[in-house]
């Protein structure tokens, strides 16, 4: 009988302590939440001092994605103007065009300059001005451009 009473008393004390811990934790949590909200409000109303600078690049090691890799520029127009006599330069141009096509939704135009009118400077200027990147290809003749 005595031992049962003692056990009941111990249980009551444990229950009381447990309730005390829960109440204290809840009040502490509420206070922390209030403080965080207060800081967030202060930050949102304060003028930004870093508006002149772009945000730091992020990098996700798990997926391998970074802010830079996800950044896509505008699709460029790439002009590859070449002259090929025996086909070797054309083959090299095709390799280069294949690489350019893998980037940035690029549009690649390959032009054999032998097919262009050398007297039409207006068409030449339009062709060159329409390109964002120009790659010139030539064979070697007598140590210089063919």
């Amino acid at each position: 009988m005595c031992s049962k009473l003692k056990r009941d008393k111990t249980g009551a004390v444990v229950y009381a302590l447990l309730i005390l811990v829960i109440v204290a934790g809840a009040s502490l949590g509420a206070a922390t939440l209030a403080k965080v909200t207060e800081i967030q409000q202060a930050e949102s109303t304060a003028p930004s001092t870093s508006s002149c600078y772009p945000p730091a690049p992020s990098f996700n090691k798990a997926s391998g994605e970074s802010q830079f890799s996800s950044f896509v520029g505008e699709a460029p127009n790439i002009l590859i103007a070449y002259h090929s006599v025996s086909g070797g330069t054309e083959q090299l141009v095709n390799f280069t065009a294949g690489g350019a096509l893998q980037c940035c939704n690029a549009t690649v135009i390959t032009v054999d300059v032998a097919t262009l009118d050398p007297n039409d400077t207006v068409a030449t200027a339009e062709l060159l001005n329409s390109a964002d990147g120009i790659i010139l290809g030539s064979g070697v003749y007598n140590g210089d451009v063919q």
Partner: protein
Amino acid sequence: MSNWLTTWPNSHSGDTMLDLSWTVGDALCTSGGYATGAQPTLYSLQRALQTFNAMYAGGTSWRSGTGICAIVDGSDGAVGMENVSEVAKYAQYLGYRVAMMASQLKVAKAAIRAANQDPFDYSNPDRPDIQWPPRVLP
């Protein structure tokens, strides 16, 4: 190719000077041997581009810093390229690099235009209508 390069509009021939300031340039060539003038050919193409203010990209490796040149054997009508897989790799990287740089420059040019600035409004001694010395864009 050399004939075509001479047709590019320039102020010396009385035309409006072609302005490739916002254009990325690069060069490639094929040669019959290692000592036949591959490097001077690449430099000639580079000089042609830079005469008109283009920015020269080069390749992605020290082996292709001034462009890429492949050694070919065109004898007997058959074209053979030495180290085709290696050359293809360097050529693809070169093309990718040009496209990537051109893409980013296109964005920069659009940003300057969005700020109501003319991307070609930089000081140029060939353009007396534009002020000199240069001013810094915001």
